[in-house]
């Protein structure tokens, strides 16, 4: 029997020093909480159920969270909890963050999780590959916004970490260095280049503190990036804690801004940096064997130690994507002939457990669950990527292009 365990628990807590509660502080926090209720109107059925819960029988209690429908609970929980659980997505220029929303000035290209909220990359179009001025706005869990004074022309995915308040990216160390533009000539001829460089070899990795909007660190690293390296205007940067990693032609460059230490990681198994498929929050995905033909394995490694953390064996999918916190690897459907009919597979890195979910335009929550919004049905679906269980939230959504959050840039 487990009476002994219960006795141990009681014995352990009996001697526990209990601090005095600060009732005034608790009530102050409670009032603040009450001032920022969910801005979404409770929809018909949910509203009726909530009212009934309060008045029925005369002795009705305040609703126990465990007894609420998912939609009722979604509307009742704090904005911070809603952000933790439901993350963010955008429809057109409206960013839905937890149970709040914010309007941004432009089309949302991407949404990236940080500890301060979700960072929205905004442009005239929602296309991430269009060279146009891009702006960044931080949307806090309570729906308030902050413009981040970083404007860049070109295609730049920022590197973020859901547990960190920093936005990271790379710029040429020489401010005058510029990659040449490509000009296509007649069919059958080589493209010509305008004045400029084919590759740039030195880059500044920058961390902007989103709490202040100011540059917090800049460190110079060496590694070639240019024409043929990828469709982006600079090496992609991922980050975790005080470390930043940049993918270059010469390897995977790590820079720790707390120590200033920089090293190029070229000792991982494979054929160099090109073998890395995606990176996020201190982890990366690579093919094994490198450069081979399907089926191959997708391997998740620690970006600092290169230690293997998890392996998805024997797939012909080249769609291996990490969740924004790198807790989960999403593997795309298997190719059958010219089609991809199967489900998405979600592998939890810590356990190796795989869960299947049907094909949908899944985005992420900050902690690696799958989230999708469907304006046609006014429905938001979140699925636990460890168990496969899903909850549906009824939410009035406008028509428009839906943009999921938490996509980390694929490097190939």
């Amino acid at each position, binding site marked *: 029997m487990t009476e002994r365990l219960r006795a141990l628990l009681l014995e352990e807590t009996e001697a526990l020093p209990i*601090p005095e509660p600060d009732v005034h502080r608790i009530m102050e926090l409670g009032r603040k909480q009450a001032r920022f209720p969910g801005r979404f109107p409770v929809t018909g059925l949910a509203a009726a159920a909530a009212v009934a819960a309060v008045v029925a029988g005369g002795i009705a209690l305040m609703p126990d969270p465990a007894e609420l429908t998912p939609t009722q609970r979604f509307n009742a929980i704090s904005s911070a909890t809603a952000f933790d659980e439901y993350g963010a997505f955008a429809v057109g220029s409206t960013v839905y963050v937890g149970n709040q929303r914010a309007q941004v000035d432009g089309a949302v290209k991407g949404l990236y999780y940080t500890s301060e909220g979700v960072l929205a990359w905004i442009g005239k179009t929602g296309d991430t590959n269009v060279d146009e001025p891009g702006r960044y706005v931080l949307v806090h869990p309570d729906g308030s916004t902050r413009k981040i004074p970083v404007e860049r022309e070109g295609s730049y995915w920022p590197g973020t970490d859901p547990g960190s308040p920093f936005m990271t990216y790379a710029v040429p160390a020489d401010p005058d260095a510029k990659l040449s533009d490509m000009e296509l000539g007649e069919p059958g001829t080589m493209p010509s280049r305008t004045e400029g460089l084919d590759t740039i070899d030195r880059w500044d990795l920058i961390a902007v503190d989103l709490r202040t909007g100011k540059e917090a660190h800049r460190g110079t690293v060496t590694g070639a990036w240019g024409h043929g390296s990828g469709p982006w205007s600079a090496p992609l940067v991922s980050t975790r804690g005080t470390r930043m990693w940049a993918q270059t032609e010469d390897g995977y460059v790590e820079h720790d801004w707390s120590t200033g230490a920089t090293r190029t990681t070229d000792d991982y198994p494979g054929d160099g940096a090109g073998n890395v498929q995606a990176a996020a929050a201190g982890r990366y995905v690579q093919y094994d064997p490198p450069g081979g033909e399907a089926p191959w394995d997708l391997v998740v490694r620690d970006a600092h130690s290169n230690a293997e953390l998890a392996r998805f064996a024997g797939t012909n999918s080249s769609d291996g994507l990490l969740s924004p916190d790198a807790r989960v690897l999403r593997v795309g459907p298997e190719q059958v002939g010219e089609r991809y009919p199967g489900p998405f597979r979600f592998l939890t890195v810590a356990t190796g457990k795989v869960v299947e979910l049907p094909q949908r335009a899944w985005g992420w929550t900050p902690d690696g669950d799958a989230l999708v919004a469907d304006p046609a049905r006014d429905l938001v679906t979140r699925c636990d990527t460890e168990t496969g269980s899903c909850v549906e939230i009824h939410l009035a959504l406008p028509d428009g292009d839906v943009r999921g959050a938490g996509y980390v840039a694929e490097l190939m």
Partner: protein
Amino acid sequence: MSSRPTDAEFTDFVRAAWPRLYRVAWLMLGDHGMAEDLVQTSMAKTYASWHQVRHSEAAFSYCRTTLVNTAGSWFRRKSWRNELATEVLPERGIEQDGSTRPDLARALAGLPTKQRAVVVLRFYEDLDVNETARVLGISPGTVKSQTSHALSKLRISLGEAFVLEGAPHD
């Protein structure tokens, strides 16, 4: 119909419920500061809905569920870091007394978060399987399987004599 509960009644509720909820929070988190933050946050959320309270006994249940949900949210945010932080255990709340008493806090800290919550609710709060499932928002079957896994691990870390087969609520 009775009038809405007052701030004075909320104060009474806080003073009465605080020690028990603090112990629950400490068992789940293993850290005094975080336990205090967790209970304070849960009580603030309860106060935000205080005007809806018609029955004071409901407040404790509501606050405990809120505490568990909030802890779950914290665990998810910190889980990735906890995976790596294996060399330094969380702050211990109780001084080592040199006795042969098993190190329960260390054993609990070694459990995955959901299993830890199940153990605390079932064997400290003395909830049955269905009540535990309702508080955690999971199925009774999951509670049973999580309990089984947790007891297996505790059996190893605490020793066979302290956790024997068969949970009383199964």
